[in-house]
């Protein structure tokens, strides 16, 4: 009964009331409920609705740890496996632009280690060539291996072709400067045909291709991409770096022109832009590349320059020596130079020389010039230079040392001392000396009589006798006067000795007696002799001309006065 009542009440609720009741229970208004119903009924709409929410939810779930990477991995692995199984080429093509750099990086790391290892191993190379390379490495701050490899490379990339893989049509071609034009289109196609032929003939894998072809010194290097091929014609022995250049160019072409390559219909104009990728492949390397400073060349240059500098220095020195010698012989009396010339590394001097001129090598030595740098071809002549005339006169006239000659205004001027005989000879022969026209003897002293007769001199000396009183030592006035005459005679004897090359001496004899105090007598006699000796020296008589002697009168055959001094001339 009660349930029936309730049912009746419900039926009494109209639609609006029901709606209000729903909103109160669910908290949603009518449009919101309709939208929810629509989403539930349409999966496409529902998917769109939760697409914004789902990534956020997944991220939150991962943060909470509800799901992790390990949970997702099998799903992605299966997905990739499925993709590869279905069409491996598609994934390979997609990955091509990034696989190249990744593989290169890995390979370059391995290569770096390999190079270091090789470098270490090659350190033991001790051949002269290796030692030279090691020195280069030392001076250029490069590794030994790098230096060693650099000597192996000498190449030039002459042509680079970009070829469409399917059609074998040439997309773009670049050539090095100064390289002749070629039929690039036909060559590119033929090249593809040849690689196809090789591939077909040896049943290579479809993705494999010919990497290189070598014909003599010409190398053809190919890099295969999914849609295009790069072929480089290289003259010489290219380094592995070229392969990297080609790969990078090919990757750049694929990255920038993938749609054009995929939909290629023969229009090649668009591929003009690939020039910027292909041109860097036109590389070349030569021995002694300008970027590297070859230290050994610099050293060689320095040595050459040093040698050149030394040679120039020597040349200048030699030139200076030659100039000094020329100047010397031009100004030297008794020479007349006609010419000079170089022969066998020496300066040969031609000219005239007077017999009385100084010898040439003596002149060179006295002027610090190397005698081995000179040679002489000299003819005799008679010089009228003043010095030479004087030398000639001295020789011709047998001029004594006491005479001085000079030549001025064609006149021979004679000064000094001479004897009559020489003066006679002078007056007779002076005009036989070449160039002498007059004679001037106003300053010439002739002392010929005093020295010509030795006996007269000896007599004059020996006539003098000085007698002293007992125990007397001083000379009186008369004795002093005679002493002066004695000194004049003594000087004449000296002159006689000099002129006649004799050695006469004056013996100063002091006489005494044994009577009385003998010793005292001896002492006084000796003092008298020494006194005279001193007086004679003071008067200018040379020391070597004088000797003293004490004599006892008792020992003489001829009686002599005691306390007297007399003189004797003797030849020594």
């Amino acid at each position: 009964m009660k349930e029936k009542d309730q049912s009746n009440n419900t039926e009494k609720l109209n639609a609006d009331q029901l709606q209000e009741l729903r909103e109160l229970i669910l908290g949603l208004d009518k449009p919101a409920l309709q939208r929810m119903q629509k989403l539930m009924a349409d999966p496409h709409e529902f998917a769109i609705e939760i697409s914004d929410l789902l990534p956020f939810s997944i991220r939150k779930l991962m943060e909470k740890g509800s799901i992790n990477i390990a949970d997702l991995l099998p799903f992605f692995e299966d997905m990739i496996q499925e993709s590869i199984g279905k069409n491996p080429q598609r994934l390979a093509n997609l990955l091509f632009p990034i696989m190249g750099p990744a593989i290169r990086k890995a390979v370059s790391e391995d290569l770096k280690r390999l190079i270091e290892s090789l470098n270490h191993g090659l350190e033991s190379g001790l051949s002269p060539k290796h030692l030279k390379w090691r020195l280069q490495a030392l001076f250029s701050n490069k590794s030994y291996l790098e230096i060693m490899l650099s000597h192996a490379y000498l190449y030039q990339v002459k042509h680079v072709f970009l070829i469409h893989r399917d059609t074998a049509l040439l997309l773009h071609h670049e050539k090095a400067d100064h390289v002749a034009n070629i039929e690039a289109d036909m060559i590119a196609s033929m090249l593809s045909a040849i690689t196809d032929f090789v591939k077909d003939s040896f049943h290579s894998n479809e993705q494999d291709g010919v990497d290189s072809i070598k014909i003599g010194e010409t190398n053809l290097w190919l890099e295969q991409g999914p849609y295009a091929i790069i072929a480089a014609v290289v003259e010489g022995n290219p380094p592995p770096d070229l392969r990297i250049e080609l790969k990078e160019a090919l990757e750049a072409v694929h990255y920038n022109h993938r749609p054009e390559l995929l939909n290629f219909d023969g229009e090649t104009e668009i591929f003009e832009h690939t020039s910027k990728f292909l041109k860097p492949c036109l590389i070349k390397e030569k021995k002694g590349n300008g970027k590297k400073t070859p230290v050994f060349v610099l050293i060689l240059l320095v040595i050459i320059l040093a040698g050149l500098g030394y040679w120039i220095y020597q040349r200048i020195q030699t030139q200076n020596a030659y100039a000094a010698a020329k100047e010397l012989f031009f100004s030297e009396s008794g020479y007349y130079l006609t010419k000079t010339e170089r022969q066998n590394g020496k300066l040969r001097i031609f000219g005239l020389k007077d017999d009385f001129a100084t010898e040439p090598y003596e002149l060179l030595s006295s002027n610090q010039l190397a005698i081995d740098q000179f040679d002489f071809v000299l003819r005799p002549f008679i010089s009228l230079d003043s010095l030479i005339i004087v030398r000639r006169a001295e020789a011709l006239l047998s001029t004594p040392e006491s005479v001085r000659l000079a030549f001025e205004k064609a006149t021979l001027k004679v000064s000094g001392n001479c004897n009559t005989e020489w003066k006679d000879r002078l007056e007779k022969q002076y005009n036989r000396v070449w160039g002498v026209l007059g004679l001037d003897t106003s300053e010439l002293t002739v002392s010929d009589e005093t020295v010509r007769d030795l006996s007269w001199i000896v007599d004059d000396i020996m006539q003098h006798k000085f007698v002293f009183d007992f125990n007397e030592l001083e000379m009186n006035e008369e004795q002093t006067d005679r002493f002066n005459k004695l000194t004049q005679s003594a000087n004449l004897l000296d002159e006689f000795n000099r002129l006649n090359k004799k050695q006469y001496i004056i013996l100063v004899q002091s006489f005494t007696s044994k009577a009385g105090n003998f010793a005292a007598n001896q002492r006084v006699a000796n003092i008298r002799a020494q006194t005279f000796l001193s007086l004679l020296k003071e008067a200018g008589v040379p020391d070597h001309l004088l000797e003293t002697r004490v004599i006892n009168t008792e020992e003489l055959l001829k009686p002599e006065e005691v306390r007297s001094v007399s003189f004797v001339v003797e030849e020594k």
Partner: protein
Amino acid sequence: MIKKKVAMVGAFAVGKTSLVQRFVRSIFSEKYHTTIGVKIDQKELVVNNVDVTLLLWDIHGEDDFMKIKPTYLIGSSGYFLVADGTRSDTYETAIKLHEMTSSVTKNAPFILLVNKADLRDIWEITETQLETLKNQGWKIIYTSAKTGDNVEEAFVELTKKMLQNQ
């Protein structure tokens, strides 16, 4: 400038090379035919005011001893089938090669060149045979390597077809 790869196929000794040699630029010798089986020539022409360069792959004639390499046909924008009018077997070979080439080139346009038109009196290939092909939509041009008749026209015709097809 548009470039197109064009293959030229046919039975052995139908005169493919002789047919075109006066009309193309060539830098490679005939020995390539017997070594790698193909020789490439170049033909430049202007069709509908468009400069076109044809790279002509002159493929060694097929016989019992040497088969055409399909890889040489890949990428061709069009092809010539060449038959010798005086040899009926070359007709059969042309039809057989067409099947392969059409498949490899994905139905690229083609023209059948029946060579030795100057010797029509002794032809073994009959008009009936050719009519059958024409009825199937084949373009057939009678050419003569000896006189050069219709060769230039054949190039122009195929080029037009290729340009329409792209």
